[in-house]
């Protein structure tokens, strides 16, 4: 797969398909190479499963096979990062605004056994 992506023309085709499905002729238009050469590059991408194509009438339309899955994965990663930031802010809130009547931690540095938080604070600020 990485070999398929190593070629700059194939990367441009992937970039184009990253914006949505496109007909072979549309894909070829901005490229300085012949249509048969574009078809060959597309066949390499199809061969490794990065691209699927479908012929309807005389038009062959290509789409990126990983797009939707990747997008959902991005969304899930975003959700997780969002919660990580929120829980870090909760930590900042708890540290900055001790409630009345509750003893604050006696030292600035928390005890070693409770520093399990692996995320650096304020990284997104």
């Amino acid at each position, binding site marked *: *797969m*990485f070999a398929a*992506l190593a070629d700059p023309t194939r*990367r441009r085709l*992937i*970039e184009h398909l*990253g*914006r*949505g499905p496109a007909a072979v002729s549309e894909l070829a238009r901005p490229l300085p190479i012949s249509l048969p050469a574009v078809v060959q590059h597309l066949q390499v991408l199809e061969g490794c499963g990065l691209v699927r194509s479908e012929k309807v009438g005389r038009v062959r339309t290509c789409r990126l096979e*990983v*797009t*939707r*899955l*990747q*997008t*959902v*994965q*991005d*969304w*899930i990663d975003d*959700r*997780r990062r*969002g*919660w*990580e*930031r*929120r*829980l*870090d*802010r*909760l*930590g*900042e*809130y*708890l*540290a900055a*605004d*001790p*409630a009345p009547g*509750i003893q604050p*931690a006696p030292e600035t540095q*928390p*005890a070693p*056994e*409770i*520093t*399990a*938080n692996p995320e650096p604070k304020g990284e*997104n*600020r």
Partner: protein
Amino acid sequence: MSSAVHDTFAIERTYPAPIERVFAAWASIEAKSQWFGDDAEVESIDEHTLDFRVGGGEHLTAKAGGSVYEFDSRYYDIVENERMVWAYEMYVDGRRMSVSVGSVELTPVPGGTRLVMTEQGTYLDGLDTSEQRAAGTREFLESLARYLERTA
């Protein structure tokens, strides 16, 4: 073409604060609005309401990156100073993107409180147009490379 993708993740934090304070930070709009929606990426929070009881819920509308995000939740279980369980939907520009069950469990530990937040999500399609197209080309290629590494 429609589909749903399922995913569960858990995040753990330990805070040097008593369990009552950690719980209280979730239990009122005054406290929660101090940290919950205040993200660097968020341009504005247009609405935030919280009715912290079983059967009650939370609603948040925010703008980020040119899109309107809506968060709508309902509490199913609340045990004071121990845990809370809610279900929620996320909308982006009016489209339902995910339906999730979230829970927070609190445990006292020496010198503080351990919090485990777990999210079980069902992520819906509808992302393949806006999100993907909004992503820059380089960003897209980088995420493609990450995907390929994961699936290699």
